[in-house]
């Protein structure tokens, strides 16, 4: 798969504060790429630079084969952006908003109305398309924002924290819409998030913290590398288990009456369970989560707000 976005040695400072420090990454065409990091990590700055809104201090960016800073208008035609803030007009209906913003891309009458219809179906806004944007719920607004970003059928869809501030159910349905769009149309999706479960569902994840990319890979790769699975044993007789583990030189910790034993993968827990079967009342095998990955990479728990 060709790289649809390539970022090399990207740097950006605001005065003395270095927001983005010399980062490199690329995004494959058609994948869902998640940029994971806490607030203030440099996610929005990076997305703003790629979307031609901010000028970088140094480094090169190529989007859809076009070089940033030289072919900005071509880049703008290839991308759709869903911003963190609501950027449609409150006093206009969703439809009026889509028509206005769609006309920015040089579309006229029939072409434009077809584009509006297509985008509103894709983002599922048809049921409230004639209502003023300002009177919609958070989830409906977010869908309208997505419809606006899709109106010119971009090759790449950028979403800056698309699900922040939404309730869990709406979050899931917005997420499903994004996923279906990417799978159905083959569009590349680049999103930033600070939710682990969202990053875990992406095709590829780059973790950014303090302006640096501290890890990248598929969620599976990251889990394998940065988190461990663990076996939790609930003992009938604690002393016997402890003695067995000590005899066999197996590392363990005790928490809440359970013995927690790290295992390299979940299957490796089986022989141990078989041997200790008579000594335990139950067990649990927990595979490593993206939370573990993040904590191991940055040494921090993701700051939520």
């Amino acid at each position: 798969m060709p790289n649809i976005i390539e970022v090399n040695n990207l740097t950006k400072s605001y005065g003395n504060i270095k927001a983005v420090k010399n980062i490199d990454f690329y995004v494959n065409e058609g994948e869902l790429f998640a940029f994971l990091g806490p607030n203030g990590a440099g996610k929005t700055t990076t997305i703003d630079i790629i979307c031609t809104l901010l000028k970088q201090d140094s480094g090169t960016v190529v989007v859809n084969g076009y070089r940033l800073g030289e072919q900005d208008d071509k880049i703008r035609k290839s991308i759709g952006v869903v911003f963190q803030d609501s950027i449609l007009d409150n006093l206009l209906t969703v439809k009026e908003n889509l028509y206005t913003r769609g006309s920015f891309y040089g579309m006229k009458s029939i072409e434009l109305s077809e584009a509006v219809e297509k985008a509103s179906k894709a983002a599922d806004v048809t049921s409230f398309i004639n209502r003023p944007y300002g009177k919609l719920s958070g989830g409906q607004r977010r869908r309208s924002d997505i419809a606006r970003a899709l109106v010119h059928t971009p090759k790449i869809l950028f979403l800056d924290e698309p699900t922040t501030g939404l309730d869990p159910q709406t979050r899931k349905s917005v997420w499903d819409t994004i996923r279906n769009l990417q799978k159905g149309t083959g569009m590349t999706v680049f999103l930033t998030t600070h939710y682990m479960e969202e990053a875990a569902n992406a095709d590829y994840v780059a973790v950014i913290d303090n302006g640096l990319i501290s890890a990248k890979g598929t969620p599976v790769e990251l889990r394998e590398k940065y988190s461990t699975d663990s076996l939790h044993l609930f003992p009938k007789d604690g002393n016997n288990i402890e003695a067995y583990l000590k005899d066999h030189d197996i590392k363990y910790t005790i928490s809440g009456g359970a013995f927690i034993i790290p295992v390299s993968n979940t299957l490796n827990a089986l022989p141990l369970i078989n041997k200790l079967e008579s000594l335990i009342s139950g067990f649990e095998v927990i595979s490593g989560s993206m939370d573990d990955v993040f904590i191991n990479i940055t040494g921090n728990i993701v700051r939520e707000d």
Partner: protein
Amino acid sequence: MTVMINLIKRNLKLFFRDRTSVFFSLLAVFIIIGLYVLFLGNMMVKNFKELLGDNARFAVDSWVMAGLLSVTSITTTMGALGTMVEDKAKKISKDFSSAPLKRSQLAGGYIMGSFIIGVIMSIAALVIAEIYILAGGGKLIALMPLLKLFGVMVLSVFAGSSMVFFITSFFKSNNAFATASTIIGTLIGFLTGIYVPIGVLPSAVQTAIKIFPISHAGALFRQIMMDVPISIAFKNAPAQAVTSFKQTMGVVFYAGSKELSPLINILVLIATGIVFYMLAVIKISIKKRD
């Protein structure tokens, strides 16, 4: 061009759907009328009773309304350009920047939008003004002067909107802009010399008023609207009396002892419009992405 037309439509809809912004853009009109109905009107009519006789009321009302129309070109376009500030404050401008939209298209949308709004609201103000004059016992304006009035209105809004656009392009937050609007809205009446006849003011203040371009729109409006009341009142009076009355009331401006013709008033408005639009274009195009 289609892009700009769509932006103009958007800006018009945003302005007219926001009832409070429509009301506030006409607030200066209501305040001026209120001021004259309650305080200044009777005093002025009394002062001119001796000179103008029964036509004093008609003349004074026409004078006040002419001044009011000149102020409207500033206050309404300022209300319309509130959208531009709000777009920046609400980061809607980020969406514009992410689209292949030219700065000139965006600026054109704001300028043309505010110009059209300025003209529409000035027409509304003219309707209110004529009702006020009629209610005071004056005569409705005839068709020819009405057309002239409309021409001056377009020029006045052209000059007013360009000045306001230039000033507004410096604002990024709604609060700062609202404060500036209030200050400008308050000062504008004094700068255009519409509260007190220019002739009774100190000469330094007179100069300040004559330098302020929109005052020339006021003069043109007065020339048209006061034509009938003046000609009735001064039917048998010497020409000298008419000239001095016109000078006192700011119907005609003088540079030293030289009378400024209507053509000069018109040229001042056109030049102002062009100069400030050029300044705004320069300001917008030198602004870099930061």
